[in-house]
């Protein structure tokens, strides 16, 4: 069963079309990386899924039920923008309030469990306003985890986290998906981090889903390239440009050849033209590069 099924979703704000006939399918148990430029409609879609704003048209189904169904919504954990906490209250009291909203009887044990999950058990007595940005993000995740959710919708949850915070978050999310069967929709601009955990991707542009694929499909569609350096980069680029169809120079100063070829063939070809290769490697383009390419194609 699909955790989320969105069909022909449209949302307009006056004359502005924020989401334009969007289709989206998130399988149960997936970590779904929801990617798009600023203003592409990611947050609007997430807010519609969570019932915070109303769609102009289209359907949103969660586990086969309408997304407004109260029983299914009680099992959705959300972190959109910032966690909804009262600044003057302690982390513990904020958690107690959310637990009561969810109707959790004797919530203390569960609060301790979720705070431990996000490695925040030591901060329960801190006032929320005194917590750092990274701590607040983790508190937000902990609040979203209350009530044993089956679906987590996280909007930019790793923003503002340091390297260790990102690692913890990554471990927490992977554990939830793998060991607890929680479906996670996560939007982030930090594609390098997303690439490490996502099992599915949805790429949105101008309010429309332009591509949905699994991590394996992404892997297959990410092209392999050969990157190299020589003592005469200008001549190398010219010679490779004559023989191969797509040759580019990357930010690190390597010349990349994207055509299906082997490093040996390139080294031989350059050697025959009196050029010695000083460095050479083969790699695949990253999610970030794939995404940037995809965005360029649409322009």
């Amino acid at each position, binding site marked *: *069963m699909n955790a989320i099924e969105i069909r022909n979703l449209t949302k307009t704000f006056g004359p502005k079309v924020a989401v334009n006939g969007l289709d989206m399918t998130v399988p149960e148990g997936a970590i779904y990386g929801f990617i798009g430029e600023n203003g592409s409609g990611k947050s609007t879609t997430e*807010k519609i899924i*969570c*019932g*915070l*704003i*109303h769609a102009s048209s289209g359907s949103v189904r969660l*586990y*086969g*039920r309408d997304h*407004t*169904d*109260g*029983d*299914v*919504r*009680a*099992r*959705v954990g*959300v972190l*959109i*923008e*910032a*966690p*909804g*906490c*009262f*600044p003057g*209250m302690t982390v513990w*009291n904020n958690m*107690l*309030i*959310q637990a*009561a*909203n*969810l*109707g959790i009887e004797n919530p203390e044990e569960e609060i301790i469990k979720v705070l431990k999950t996000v490695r925040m058990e030591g901060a329960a007595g801190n006032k929320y306003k005194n917590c750092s940005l990274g701590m607040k993000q983790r508190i937000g995740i902990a*609040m979203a985890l209350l*009530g044993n959710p*089956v679906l987590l919708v996280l909007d930019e949850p790793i923003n503002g986290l340091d390297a260790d915070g990102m690692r913890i978050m990554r471990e927490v999310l992977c554990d939830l998906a793998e060991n607890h069967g929680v479906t996670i929709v996560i939007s982030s601009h930090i594609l390098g981090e997303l690439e490490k955990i996502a099992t599915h991707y949805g790429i949105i542009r101008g309010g429309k889903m332009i591509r949905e694929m699994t991590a394996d499909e992404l892997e297959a569609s990410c092209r392999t390239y050969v990157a190299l350096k020589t003592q005469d980069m200008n001549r190398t680029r010219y010679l490779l440009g004559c023989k191969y169809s797509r040759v580019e120079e990357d930010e690190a100063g390597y010349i990349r050849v994207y055509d299906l070829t082997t490093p040996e063939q390139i080294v031989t070809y350059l050697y025959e033209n009196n050029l010695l290769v000083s460095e050479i490697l083969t790699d695949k383009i990253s999610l970030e590069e794939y995404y940037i390419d995809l965005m360029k194609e649409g322009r």
Partner: protein
Amino acid sequence: MERNFECNTFGRRLKSMLKVDLRRMFTSLLIYILVASCLVMPIVITVMVEMMEGTTPIDQQTGLPGEPIKGFDSAWQIIGSVSGGDAMGGMGSTSGEAGDQMAEMSMDITSMCNINMLYFLIAVPVCLFVSDDFRSGYAKNLFTVRAKKTDYVISKTIVCFIGGALMILAFFIGSLLGGVISGLPFDMVGFNAGELVMCIISKVLLVSVFVPIYLVVSVAAKQRAWLSLLLSFGVGMFLFMMIPMMTPLNASVMNVILCLAGGVMFGAGLGAVSNLVLKKTALV
């Protein structure tokens, strides 16, 4: 395989939400400040008016002495006035001698500084309570896990009613203390103890008429507390004149029933409007 989701009954949902709202209200400093103010206010008013009684203010423009300031005749005057009687218990009519007295009193300091002004003050906890929900993101958390906006409206109405009722009761106690401190007579002229109890019950129940008004304004204004307060005071002004008529000192069971009916009517009607506002507008 289809997942099973536990069904949350209305009773269970309301219970948990009331628990949260009551906890929030009684852990916030604001409600204690307001209740304490309501307790102190009548004492200060009574003492000051009694101190100023008989003094003649000088008109700043003409330089001529004005009318001497009239103090309270009885300790009950700060709670309300006796209404002229007819079949409706004086609800819709202020005719006769008592009506004339009431009209005369309307320009008097003692008729302005009484319990009735609290119905404006009740807007403060309602507006700040609701705006805080939206400003902090609590509403976002809440409406994500709870699809039913009705729960929120009912819970807020009940909790704000309790808060308002506490303020009214605190003012009543303050009035008694003020009367004792100022040495005002506690003579019941034109009403008896039973009618006084009915008056207090009516005043408490009248809170339930004002709370839904302030609530609908607050949910429409969302995090803009200043706007909800401004609108609440404006809208509350229209109903201000009915307070002395609905809750005179010589109130009867009819007054209680009317206040209760008004509360139910306003609560249901404006509650439905609040619900609609929440359903039709963006919550973030």
